[in-house]
């Protein structure tokens, strides 16, 4: 009951905020939601299955470039382009998964980064399609057709992204609560025993990798619609590392954790950076403190504090 009340309050707040905040902050909130989807998708692989990837931006970038290329060079149709962005990101994840899931631990980390760099290289050099380092400007916000509001307004686009965030959250929540979700967590805990129990662990990891790719593609597409621009930066290792940081900072192995992590990182990146030049240093310090004192992330700290306060009562 308490949980549902909490969710209702948060949704109410998210409904009201765009009406009272200026455009800059609404865009910031929109970015938080987009990166929250991205971080949650990474958490499926990293937190639930236990495979830390440094190449998750690859699927984000595929989603982003699909929207960019199709909107500008083929057809600007949201109903075709966004699903296509999601499917293509999933297909690239399916292809990469065949290669990366042969490895584990540090090798997995390195090979995911290397494959992401391959796509970054293609985006930089295939100028005809991608615009090279200059990127592709002039990507229009989606035209949904049947809704009477224009998505050009920051508030309307926020609600549009909020809808996708809620859908993505619910879908991922359903997956992690399913027998499949129970199994991937157990693979993280003890893969050998899972194999001994008759589970085809590779298949579970592969499907999880594809699911993560699909949602990353969605978030990449939504970001391009927000910015109206796509460049090779969406494929950089630094973006993958940032997502990794969001997951670890918020709390891996939960869906709320990455949302908190995304909010913290995007907030620091955009707000603190306007007051101090070395905001990354601050992010680094916060990260070190979290790892040292609350390895379960900010969510772990919140849970610990609420347990303590309950014990006092």
């Amino acid at each position, binding site marked *: 009951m308490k949980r549902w009340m909490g969710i209702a309050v948060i949704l109410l707040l998210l409904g009201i905020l765009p009406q009272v905040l200026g455009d800059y902050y609404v865009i910031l909130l929109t970015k938080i939601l987009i990166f929250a989807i991205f971080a949650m998708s990474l958490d499926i692989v990293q937190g639930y299955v236990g495979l830390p990837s440094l190449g998750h931006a690859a699927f984000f970038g595929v989603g982003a470039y699909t929207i960019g290329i199709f909107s500008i060079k083929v057809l600007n149709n949201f109903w075709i382009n966004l699903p296509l962005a999601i499917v293509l990101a999933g297909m690239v994840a399916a292809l990469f998964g065949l290669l990366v899931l042969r490895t584990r631990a540090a090798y997995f980390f390195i090979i995911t980064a290397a494959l992401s760099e391959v796509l970054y290289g293609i985006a930089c050099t295939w100028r005809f399609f991608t615009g090279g380092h200059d990127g592709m400007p002039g990507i229009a916000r989606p035209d949904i057709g049947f809704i009477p509001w224009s998505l050009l307004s920051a508030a309307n686009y926020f609600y549009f992204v909020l809808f996708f965030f809620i859908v993505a959250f619910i879908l991922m929540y359903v*997956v992690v609560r*399913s*027998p499949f979700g129970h199994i991937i967590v157990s693979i993280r805990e*003890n893969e*050998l*025993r899972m194999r*001994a129990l008759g589970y085809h662990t590779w298949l579970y990891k592969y499907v999880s990798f594809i699911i993560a790719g699909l949602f990353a593609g969605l978030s990449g597409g939504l970001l391009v619609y927000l910015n109206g621009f796509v460049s090779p930066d969406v494929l950089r290792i630094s973006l993958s590392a940032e997502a990794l940081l969001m997951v670890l900072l918020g709390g891996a192995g939960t869906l709320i954790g990455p949302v908190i992590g995304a909010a913290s990182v995007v907030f620091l990146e955009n707000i603190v950076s306007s007051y101090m030049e070395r905001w990354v240093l601050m992010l680094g310090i916060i990260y070190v403190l979290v790892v040292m004192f609350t390895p379960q992330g900010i969510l772990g700290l919140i849970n610990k504090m609420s347990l303590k306060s309950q014990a006092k009562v």
Partner: protein
Amino acid sequence: MKALVADKICKNFEGIQALLNVSVEVEIGERRGMIGPNGAGKTTFFHIISGILSPTSGSIYLFGKDITHLPMHARANLELSQTFQLISLFKKLTVLENIVLALQSFKRRKYILHRPLSIYKDVFNEAEKALQEWELWDKRNLRVSELSYGEQRLLDIMLALIGKPRLLLLDEPTSGLSLAEVKTVISRIRALSREITIIFIEHHMDVALELAERVTVLHMGQVVAEGTPTEIKRDPRVKKIYLGTEKG
């Protein structure tokens, strides 16, 4: 038909010959003990049977089916189950969750992505029945890491048995247990149906000879003796391996 036929199994680890032409045949329903000093190759043999390791050469037949090249999970689906030398559980999960996990592996719903696990009441009912039978029901909500070592060992064996395997490999099931716990484990193993063939590795000679109907002795990667416990006790080669002398 035999429960298990291991035919001339060899295993070479980069120049170290861990197993050399090991051939073992186990009858259906048999209790087979495997003994031998440390480094004899017992666990390597188990790992080859279960699919953790591939043999360098040789073949393995499980109830007449060639499983030499099958992956581990596929062997488990052919009703081959095992426990490990070191307890291998899901320590962050509760006792109940561990059992549910083992039960799910035999159901097609293990691939379900769109429904919560909690709606499958039948699995939880089966888990309750099993936990009550093994006297662990009161501890169902404890994390495995909160159980005593002996309880963890029991749960470990329980996990291997829950899918009603036809062949069970137990790697040192009594290791690290107190005398009272050893007795409990032995009585549990004794009570198992004859439909389950059991091969076990045991360091406690008395336990091995008490539980087994036949015993295979491995030494330096080779089978040096095989027979009933009485035959093994009298075998001069076994005495030499264990006591350094052929005199008993």
